[in-house]
């Protein structure tokens, strides 16, 4: 077991290394850099060279990569180019904001998704399933920028219940953030819940059709007892990995929602720093997002391993 965990952690580090290389090379190969963006039409001659010197872009790429990598290992991402701020200071509040948004969505979305998925599966093809499934498929197919815009229109502009866009500074405290994130959380939860509920539904239906559930029924096990003892533990096991991927996606990937609501999270930072050619920030973000994926997937795999007796005893045998 311990060896497996260590193996997975090592693999995670290798993944991160490759990710850092790819982003570095990718940004290097793209035409244009921070100086050409910054200087615009004056990007030639002495001004350009001075800019390169100032930002340290005149030294060879591999040297820059190595010195940067050493910094990252020590927890220092260096300086951003555009704002000339310490990247750690840029990232800190953004990570916190994204965490707040993600945790709120997870706390609300996942229980609802599980509930809806289980209800639709147990009442398959009956009224509750038809109603909920219509709703989930509907909210799955509408792109989030449309549902988010509609939410703003209805709740913020027509009803005037909540602020339409987030107008707090990046470094705002959680209590300042909370009323502002209600609409973004609803927008995110709608699409996330729909996806997960469909997944849970098909997983529960599959287990309900299995021989062991039929056996439990024929053994005389009362319905709800059968659902909780024989169906759910087996049906929700595969959901762990999907939940993990959703969490990782929430932490870094809700770009569209963040842009629509003007929310100062990681997703918007990605867009901003790419358009500014802010290479160090892009690299830092790539590493952070990749780490989130690696860590959360590792946790999900270990959880599955612990909860599935079949895998557990396989591991012990080895």
């Amino acid at each position, binding site marked *: 077991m311990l060896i497996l965990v260590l193996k997975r952690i090592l693999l995670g580090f290798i993944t991160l290394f490759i990710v850092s290389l790819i982003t570095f090379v990718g940004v290097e190969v793209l035409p244009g850099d921070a100086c050409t963006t910054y200087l615009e039409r004056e990007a030639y001659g002495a001004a350009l060279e001075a800019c390169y010197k100032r930002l340290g872009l005149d030294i060879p790429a591999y040297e820059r990569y190595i010195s940067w990598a050493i910094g990252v290992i020590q927890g220092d991402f260096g300086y951003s180019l555009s704002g000339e701020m310490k990247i750690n200071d840029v990232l800190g509040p953004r990570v916190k904001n994204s965490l707040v948004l993600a945790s709120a969505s997870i706390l609300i979305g996942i229980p609802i998704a599980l509930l809806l998925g289980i209800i639709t599966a147990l009442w398959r093809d009956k009224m509750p399933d038809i109603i909920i499934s219509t709703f989930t498929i509907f909210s799955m197919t509408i792109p989030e920028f449309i549902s988010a815009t509609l939410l703003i229109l209805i709740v913020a502009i027509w009803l005037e219940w909540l602020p339409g866009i987030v107008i707090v500074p990046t470094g705002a405290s959680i209590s300042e953030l909370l009323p502002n994130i209600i609409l973004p959380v609803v927008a995110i939860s709608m699409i996330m819940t729909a996806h997960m509920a469909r997944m849970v539904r098909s997983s529960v239906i599959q287990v309900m*059709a*299995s*021989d*062991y*559930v*039929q*056996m*439990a*029924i*024929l*053994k*005389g*096990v*009362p*319905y709800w007892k059968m659902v909780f*003892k*024989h169906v759910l*533990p*087996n049906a929700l096991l595969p959901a762990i990995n999907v939940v993990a991927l959703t969490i990782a996606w929430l932490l870094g990937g809700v770009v569209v929602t963040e842009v629509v609501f003007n929310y100062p999270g990681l997703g918007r930072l990605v867009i901003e720093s790419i358009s500014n050619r802010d290479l160090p920030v892009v690299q830092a973000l790539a590493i952070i997002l990749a780490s989130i994926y690696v860590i959360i997937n590792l946790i999900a795999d270990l959880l599955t391993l612990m*909860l*599935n*007796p*079949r895998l557990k*005893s396989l591991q012990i045998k080895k």
Partner: protein
Amino acid sequence: MQQVVQEIKNLSIGFTSQKGEQISILKNISTIINKGETVGIVGESGSGKSTLALAMMGYVKHGLYTISGECIYQSNDILKMKNRELENIRGRKIAMIPQNAGQSLTPNLKIGYQIDEALRLHTNFQKEDRDVKISELLNKVRLPSPETIAKRYPHELSGGQQQRVAVAMALAGSPDLLLLDEPTTGLDVTTQAHVLELLNFIAKDTGTSMVYVSHDLGAIAQVSDRVIVMYSGEIVLDGPVRTILKNPIHPYTYGLLKSIPKLTLSGLPNSMSGSQPQPGTIKEGCSFYDRCEFAEDKCKIKSPELEFVNEFNTSVRCFNHKELHKKKDKDKKSSKNVLRKLTKNEILDISSVSISYAKQKFIEQLLNKIDDTNPTVKDINIKIDKGETLALVGESGSGKSTILKSIAGLIKAKDGIIKFDKNKILSSDLKKREANYLRAIQLIFQNPDESLNPNHTVEEIVSQPLKLYFGLSGNELKQKIIEVLKKVRLGEFYLTRYPRQLSGGEKQRVAVARAFAAKPDIILCDEVTSALDVSVQAAVLNLLQELKEDFGTTYIFVSHDLAVVKAISDRVAVLYQGRLCEIGPSESVYKFPSHPYTEVLLGAVLEPDPDIKPKLVAEDIVEEKPPEKGCSFQGRCPRLLGQICKTDVPPWQIDENGNAIRCHIKINDLKNQQISN
């Protein structure tokens, strides 16, 4: 007057098709289960036998519904009961033993919990008493060390053990009626014989009525007092076991019995043409009309009723049962003899082949250490002549399929050489084999559902080898495909069909056609008839035999079914734990099984005759791994000599018939001992 446990009256169950038609899976079933009686329900897949058994517990599968009729238990109709009432009957009054115990035990719950659950639901025992009861139940189904078994998860048990757990669970509520749905299908022969013996013991010991559903007439013969034969959702025959199996007065049962290969018969069984009609396709007349050799015009128009024949104490659904009874006596010749032309012309030479599944560790790979002293398959030496059918038999885990795969090049052998056509060495690496040798050896797999690409038409499937090995194209290719299909008796109109539009037998014919299209010298058959119904199995066996006579092909035939092997093979090799035990001409191996393992295996075969009982001479323990030293069969051998069997690999001995065995006991002593038994 016998006490009735359950009465089924005019039961019809069906579904509504996409066109809105009502289609019956069960048609007007009426029968009675008496107290203490074991009723066998037999039929091929799709005959509705499982649906009937489930209906007896008030369970109708998703999509099906009761059209008419009732299942009466203690003067109430089970099919009309509310869930609450059913929960009090299921497991307590009527219990089910499922087909596949491995999949019927909930994977995340320990064995002890699952039995305890049944006890909690259906008895008033306190916790301590229940723990004692769990051990008692596990003991009753003869599981070793019940306390450890109770703490295990289902996947940690062998197939036979899982089936025993399912029996223990069903007995927990001391039911009046046990329903068994193919409880031994998928188990090894010896395990199957042991489980059946246990069921017989339980039936006698507890006086429980049993309904035993199976496609296997051999198993039915061993346990049943009465047999119901089902065809296309109808009862066609219902009577005492001896009448049904020895004097079947319905043409379907008669044909079915003739199509089963038996140890007591030589040669191939007769096949029945056609296959069971799909539900809803027969609108009027007898559903067996198309396949019946005794059919008359009236059978096509009018459907016969179930008629009670006093003489045989049997109900039968046939207009002509009296004529059948008379005709049958004249028709004594019931099996075809196999034409054997053997040439002494070696085509394949397998010498000292060992195969290991052990994965090398990374460090061992670096040091180039290949050191598995105890490989899965070890020291296989077999020479095969052109035109011969060699059968590899053994229980699951005996390495028979592994050997086949290594001949085909799908698994690399660790040691040893396989020579083709006297002196051409076949590389163990598939990629290094010449195209001509790839063509010369073809494989037919067990399950045509998985071996045929569902997105290819029959034409595309059969064209693959023709294009690959002979570079055919256009009209020439098409003609050749039609020719090959004709050989396996499939008409031209099959060209555009997809596998899902074919029946099981037709699919396997396409797989056979694909193998023969390559004009191979050797065809490797991996359990080719195991997934087929008995009547279809006979047809495929006959087809393989005819093709062999036409083309002089060599077969290597892997099967766990010893009666099938007897019917088709010239020579048999018996394997245990990846080691050869006995090899010799089929006739003499079956007549005088010399090796103790062959004796155990043959003893456990079930014949469709209630008067031939299996001989259980060894325990059905499952060994995970072959022993490091000595004889491979030492763990289960009923004739163990002593220390020598545990330390020394037994020598080869050959008798005058050409039987070679590996045993420390003298071959003639073994024979004498068996005869004196």
